[in-house]
C-alpha cells in the first residue's frame, strides 16, 4: 500500500468521489485556481473545471447556504471553510437549516452536504487560525461530526461522508496535514461513520481521543511501554453519532480512563464521553475518569511559548497516564 499524507488522503478522496459521481462538486474560498490555501483541492479545477470547483466570495454564510440549496436540489456539495475559525458566520445556516431539513420535512427532504474545515493549533496560527470548534456542533442533533486522525481514516471517512444522505461536518486537524503519513489502499473503500477504532491494545489505562492528540497519546503509550505501563488507545473518529459500544468496551479493558482533546475542557466533548461512562460503565471503573484538554482561555496565543503551553503533547499525556496507572 502506498504511504501518503493526511492532506493527500483528502485530495484523493475528493478526486475519486468527483469521478465516481457527477453530482459531487466542491466550493469554497480559493479552492479552485489556488487549489486551496492548504492545497487540499489541488488539481481538481484542472480535472473537473470551474463548474464543479467553485471559488466563492469570502462569505461563509453563503458557502453554507448555497450548499444546502444545492443538496436539497439533489447535488452532493463538498464545501470548504478555509479555517474552522471562519465557520461562525455559517453557523445559522448549518444549525438552523442543514441540521433540521430532514426532521422538519418529515423525511421528505434531505441534506447530503459535507462541510470540510481545517481546525486546531500548533501551527503558529494564533487566534483566528487555530480554534477547535467541534463543541459548538456536537450538541446539535441532525449533524454528523467526523474527526479522523490518520490518512486511511481520512480517505475512507470523507468518501463515506460524501455518500451520506445527511449533513456531515468533516473536521481535519491542520497540524496533521503534512505531519501524519500512513498507508492507504489504492482501491476504493469507505470507513463507516459512527465507528470508533482501537489504535493500540493495552491493559493498564484506556485513553480516548481523536485528531492530533490521538497521535500524542500513541507516542505517550509507546514511551510508557518502556516503563511497563500498558496503554489502550481508542480513536473516536466520529463524535456524532458516537460509538458508545466501543467506548464501554475500551473502559472495560482497564477500568481507568483518560479522555484527551485539544478543544477546551469546559463544555468540550470529553465531558459527554465521561458522562456516558459514568452512566453506563460505573461498575467497570477502577479510578476517577480523567480529562486532559486545552485550557479554558478565549483563544490560541500567538506567542510561541504560550502556544506550546496551550497545546497538549506526548509528555503531558504520559504524565496524566502515569498518574492513573499508579492510582
Amino acid at each position: 500500500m502506498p504511504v501518503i499524507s493526511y492532506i493527500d488522503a483528502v485530495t484523493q478522496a475528493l478526486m475519486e468521489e468527483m469521478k465516481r459521481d457527477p453530482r459531487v462538486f466542491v466550493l469554497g474560498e480559493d479552492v479552485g485556481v489556488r487549489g486551496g490555501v492548504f492545497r487540499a483541492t489541488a488539481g481538481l479545477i484542472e480535472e473537473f473545471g470551474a463548474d464543479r470547483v467553485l471559488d466563492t466570495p469570502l462569505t461563509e454564510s453563503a458557502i453554507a447556504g448555497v450548499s444546502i440549496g444545492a443538496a436539497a436540489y439533489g447535488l452532493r456539495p463538498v464545501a470548504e471553510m478555509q479555517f474552522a475559525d471562519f465557520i461562525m458566520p455559517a453557523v445559522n445556516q448549518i444549525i438552523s437549516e442543514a441540521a433540521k431539513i430532514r426532521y422538519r420535512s418529515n423525511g421528505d427532504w434531505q441534506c447530503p452536504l459535507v462541510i470540510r474545515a481545517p481546525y486546531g493549533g500548533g501551527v503558529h496560527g494564533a487566534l483566528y487560525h487555530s480554534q477547535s470548534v467541534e463543541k459548538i456542533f456536537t450538541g446539535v442533533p441532525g449533524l454528523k461530526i467526523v474527526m479522523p486522525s490518520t490518512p486511511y481514516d481520512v480517505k475512507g471517512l470523507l468518501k463515506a461522508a460524501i455518500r451520506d444522505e445527511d449533513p456531515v461536518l468533516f473536521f481535519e486537524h491542520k497540524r496533521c496535514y503534512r505531519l501524519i503519513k500512513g498507508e492507504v489502499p489504492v482501491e476504493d473503500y469507505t470507513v463507516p461513520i459512527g465507528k470508533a477504532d482501537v489504535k493500540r491494545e493495552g491493559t493498564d489505562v484506556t485513553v480516548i481521543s481523536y485528531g492530533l492528540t490521538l497521535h500524542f497519546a500513541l507516542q505517550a503509550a509507546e514511551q510508557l511501554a518502556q516503563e511497563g505501563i500498558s496503554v489502550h488507545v481508542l480513536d473516536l473518529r466520529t463524535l456524532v453519532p458516537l460509538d458508545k459500544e466501543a467506548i464501554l468496551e475500551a473502559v472495560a479493558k482497564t477500568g481507568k480512563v483518560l479522555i484527551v482533546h485539544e478543544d477546551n475542557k469546559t463544555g468540550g466533548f470529553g465531558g459527554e464521553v465521561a458522562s456516558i461512562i459514568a452512566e453506563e460503565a460505573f461498575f467497570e471503573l477502577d479510578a476517577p475518569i480523567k480529562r486532559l484538554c486545552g485550557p479554558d482561555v478565549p483563544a490560541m496565543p500567538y506567542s510561541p511559548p504560550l502556544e506550546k503551553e496551550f497545546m497538549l503533547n506526548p509528555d503531558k499525556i504520559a504524565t496524566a497516564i502515569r498518574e492513573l496507572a499508579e492510582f
Partner: protein
Amino acid sequence: MATDIKMPQLGESVVEGTIAKWLKQPGDRVEKYEPICEVSTDKVNAEVPSTFDGVMVEIIAQEGETVEVGQLICRIETEGEGAVESKSAAASAGSVAPAAQETPKAKADTAGDNSNKHRYSPAVLRLSQEHGIDLTQLQGTGKGGRITRKDVLKAIEQGGTQPAVATAAQVPVPEAPVAPATPAAAPAREAVTASTTPAAPAKTGVVLENGDREIPVTGVRKTIAQRMVQSKHEAPHAWTMMEVDVTGLVALRNRLKHEFKQREGVNLTFMPFFIKAVVDSLKEFPQLNSVWDGDRIILKKDINISIAVATDDALYVPVIHNADEKSILGLTKAVNQLAEKTRAGKLELKDMQGGTFTVNNTGSFGSVLSAPIINAPQAAILSFESIVKRPVVFGDNMFAVRDMMNICMSLDHRILDGLMAGRFLKRVKERLEAYGPDSQI
C-alpha cells in the same frame, strides 16, 4: 568488571538490615564514599557508602527486602575497565529494568502509605463480590496501598483468597510493655505461658468495622514488638520493688536547680542522680551488669546505661557509654543530648549499641508502679516511679510527710536470683536516701 556490593556489618550485633531506599538506580554514576542506599537495622537507619567509583549496574536486593550481613545487594561497574563496557552494561541494565520496575515501584508505595487500602473502586467491589474475593486478604499495589482492579483480577486468576484460618484467633496477643506487677518471689511463672512462636506475625482475624483505622506494623513499631515478645518469651522475668525516701534529694535539687540552670544552661533533673546511684551500685554488684549468652553469662566491664526515651509513637533506648566516668553534670548533659537526638530522629547506630543496664524514668508520666520488660540480653531493668508526698512512720514512732518514690526492677532470673537483686536494689535505695539538702555534687 562489575563488583559485588554486599550488606556491610553496620554494628557489632547487627546480623541483617532492611533496604529502606535505593539512592542510586541502575545506570547512575557512583562516586567513592557516596551513599548508594539507606539500610534500616533494628532501630537505626544508616547509609551504605560505595567503596569505589563506578556505575550502578544492577540492584539485587529490592526496597523492603531484609538481607543478611555479607549477602549480595547490588553490583557496581568499577572504573578503569573502559567506558564502552560500562556504558553497555548500564544500557543493558536499563533494558532489563522495565520488566521488573513496576512491582518494586508499587511495593515502595505501599510499604509506607496505606491510606487508600480500604478505598475500593466500583470495579474492585463488583469483581470481589462476583468472585467471592475477600478484599482484606489482598495486598494493594495502587497509590496509598489501594487495591486495584488488576490486584483483584490477579487474585481471581490465582483461585481466589483463602478464608481466614480459624486457629489464628487462638494465638495470644503479645502483652503490653508495661504489664501488671508480679511478686518478686514468684520465679519464672510468666515465661511458661508464652508457648507460641513470638515473632511470627499472627492475625487475630479481627474484622474491621466502620470507622476503624488500621495502622500497619512496620519499622520501629515492628522492632519494638519483636523485641518485647522475644524478651518476655525468653527471659524469665522476676520483679521486685522498694520504697525510697528521697526527701533529702528533693531538697537538694530544689536548692541547686536555679543556680545549676544559670550556670550550665540545662535543667537539673532527678534522672542523673538515679543513674549515678545505679552506676555506683553496679560497681558493687557486677552480676547486675551482665548479659545472657546462651550457655554463659558475660559480666561486662564497661557500665553503659540504656535510658528509655519515648516519642509519641515509639520507644527508644539510647545508651550513655561509660556512665561510671561521668559526674552529675556529665550525666545531665548526656541524658539531654540523647533525648534531643531521639526526638529529632537523629540517633546513630553507636547511640543505640552496647547498653549493659537499663534505667527507665516512668515517674515522668506519673506512674507509681510498673513492671518493665527487660532490654534483652541485659540482666535487669530498673524503673524510677513518681515522687509523691506521703505520710510515713519516721524516726522514733512519729508520722511525717516525706517525699517517697518506688523503684521497681525486673530481672532475668536465669542470671540473677532474688537475693543478689535485692542487695543491689537496697544499695541504690541507700545511695538515694543519703542525699541531703547540703550534699555536694
